[in-house]
């Protein structure tokens, strides 16, 4: 009767244990030791491990039984890479329960099914000296596709980091170069601004009109010449001469305190230019050269070599 009660208690105890993984149980020949085998998890990726646990339990003290034989399990498509064991004594419902647990960490060899064969356990009852034999169930594990390793994208991260770093470096280098170029440009423009107005407009006069050209359009050249003069005077006296007529130029320059000689020279050039620009009549080249000379005199430079059709012929 007592044995029946103990067995019932053990049965209730084991039924209360929730094992979500694959599990198989067997009872010893004397109904003293109960063995269970489980694999956690039962679907294992190729590059991961599973834990196979063999658990022996019985009522009473831990040394009540002597485990005389306990071989490592035979495995198929698996490798045992680690083993561990633990003993434990617990009191459940006022009754002492002893437990021995053997854990095998297994790693799959290939995709497909893997098996842990049942193991044979031999033990002896120390009270009676009788020996018993017990076998655990066979376990199945499904080996599935490997999971990506946590470090598998590291190369991509490293590549992106290198790329990003390169871009930042290029940007910084360009920015530094642009700043240097801007500083140089500013320095150049500052240096250019130090060039006198007369030099600047003398240079512009040279660029606008080349008196050596034998087929120079005299009327058009007069227009450019007047433009250079107006811009020069506008810059020199800070006057709105670009939108002023020739007679207005006289008044504005007089108000700005320009010398009479400069005003007279200016009017001489602009009036000749007005005739060339607006009368529709072809102006003489000599008139252009005269106006050019006056402007050169105002700019205080001898800006261009003389030439033209007559000079060209003489040169020949």
């Amino acid at each position, binding site marked *: 009767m007592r044995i029946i009660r103990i067995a019932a208690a053990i049965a209730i105890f084991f039924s209360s244990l929730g094992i979500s993984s694959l599990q198989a149980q067997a009872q010893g020949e004397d109904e003293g030791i109960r063995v269970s085998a489980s694999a956690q998890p039962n679907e294992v990726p190729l590059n991961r491990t599973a834990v196979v646990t063999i658990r022996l339990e019985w009522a009473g003290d831990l040394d009540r039984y002597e485990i005389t034989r306990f071989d490592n399990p035979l495995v198929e498509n698996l490798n045992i890479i680690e083993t561990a064991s633990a003993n434990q004594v617990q009191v459940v419902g006022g009754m002492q329960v002893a437990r021995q647990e053997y854990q095998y960490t297994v790693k799959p060899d290939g995709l497909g099914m893997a098996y842990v064969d049942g193991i044979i356990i031999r033990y002896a009852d120390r009270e009676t000296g009788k020996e018993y034999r017990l076998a655990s169930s066979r376990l199945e594990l499904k080996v599935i596709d490997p999971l990506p390793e946590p470090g598998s994208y590291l190369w991509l991260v490293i590549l992106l980091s290198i790329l990003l770093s390169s871009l930042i470096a290029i940007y910084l280098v360009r920015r530094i170069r642009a700043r240097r170029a801007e500083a140089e440009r500013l320095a150049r423009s500052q240096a250019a601004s130090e060039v006198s107005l007369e030099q600047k407009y003398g240079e512009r006069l040279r660029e606008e009109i080349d008196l050596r050209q034998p087929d120079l359009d005299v009327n058009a050249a007069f*227009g450019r010449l007047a433009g250079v003069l107006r811009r020069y005077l506008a810059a020199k006296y800070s006057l709105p001469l*670009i*939108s002023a007529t*020739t007679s*207005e130029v006289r008044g504005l320059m007089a108000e700005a305190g320009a010398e009479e000689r400069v005003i007279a020279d200016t009017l001489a050039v602009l009036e000749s230019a007005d005739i060339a*620009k*607006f*009368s*529709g009549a*072809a102006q003489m080249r000599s008139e252009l050269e005269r106006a050019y000379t006056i402007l050169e005199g105002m700019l205080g430079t001898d800006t261009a070599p003389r030439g033209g059709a007559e000079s060209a012929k003489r040169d020949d």
Partner: protein
Amino acid sequence: MNIDIQAIQAKIERESAFVEKITAEVGKVIVGQNYMIERLLIGLLADGHILLEGVPGLAKTMTVKALSAAIKTQFQRIQFTPDLLPADIVGTMIYDQKNGSFSTKKGPIFSNLVLADEINRSPAKVQSALLEAMQERQVTIGDTTFPLPAPFLVLATQNPIEQEGTYPLPEAQVDRFMLKLSVGYPDRNEELEIMRRMTRVDLPQASAVVSPQEIINARRAVHEVYIDPKIENYIVDIVFATRKPKEYGLDELADLIAYGASPRASIYLSMASKAHAFLSRRGYVTPEDIRSIAMDVLRHRVIITYEAEAEEISAEDVVRKIINKVEVP
């Protein structure tokens, strides 16, 4: 393009000889007002009507009378009043009881020089009758159309200060005047001379020194005055700046102009600048001519916004800014 500028110049010299005579003759009666006299001659030479605006007593009417006397032309003055009728201007058909038929009685508009005094005192239908005749240069009475004599020039006056009981001219009709002159007060010396001259017993009179044919010949010469494409572009730039000021760097005017100048402005600016060059005895137009005449051509063609009025900015201020900004060729 080959322009015989010397031939044009010689013609201008020849045909403009009367200008000094006419100016001297008008100057016998009018003291100062050279600006107004010059503009009246421009209107006469460029075949464009003129609107004179100024306070009473500035010799507007007297100048027009003196000019007509100097030209030996028919002159009519029409005093515009609220009860004036279109027939009082253009004429009408009158029934002759003796003959039992209708005969045409031409109105005062059939004259070479017509002074429409205080044009804004008459209602729109009367203004309309005059302005239509100005444009068409002909008048229809009954079934018959009569051409107006040549030269035909309307000089209208209006008073800018008394606005009560007036009928302001609509923009479309003001646009038909080539020039709108703003007549100002004389200076101190001129005022003194006016006082002395007008208080004499024998008031000075202008006598005829120019024939209408001379004016017609001069008009032909004005048409021959050379205008360079650069000047034409300058005119178009100025007119376009009234329409699209932002494109000419005049952003501040964009909100001040409701309507820019019409193409008539370009036409009249070209014609008036030729006449101005003619008066200067020059065979070609320069930017000076444009700058000189632009304000009178544009001041009544640029319509400002309420915003501009609120800021007490006039059309003249706007035009002045444009002229001072647009680059001279």
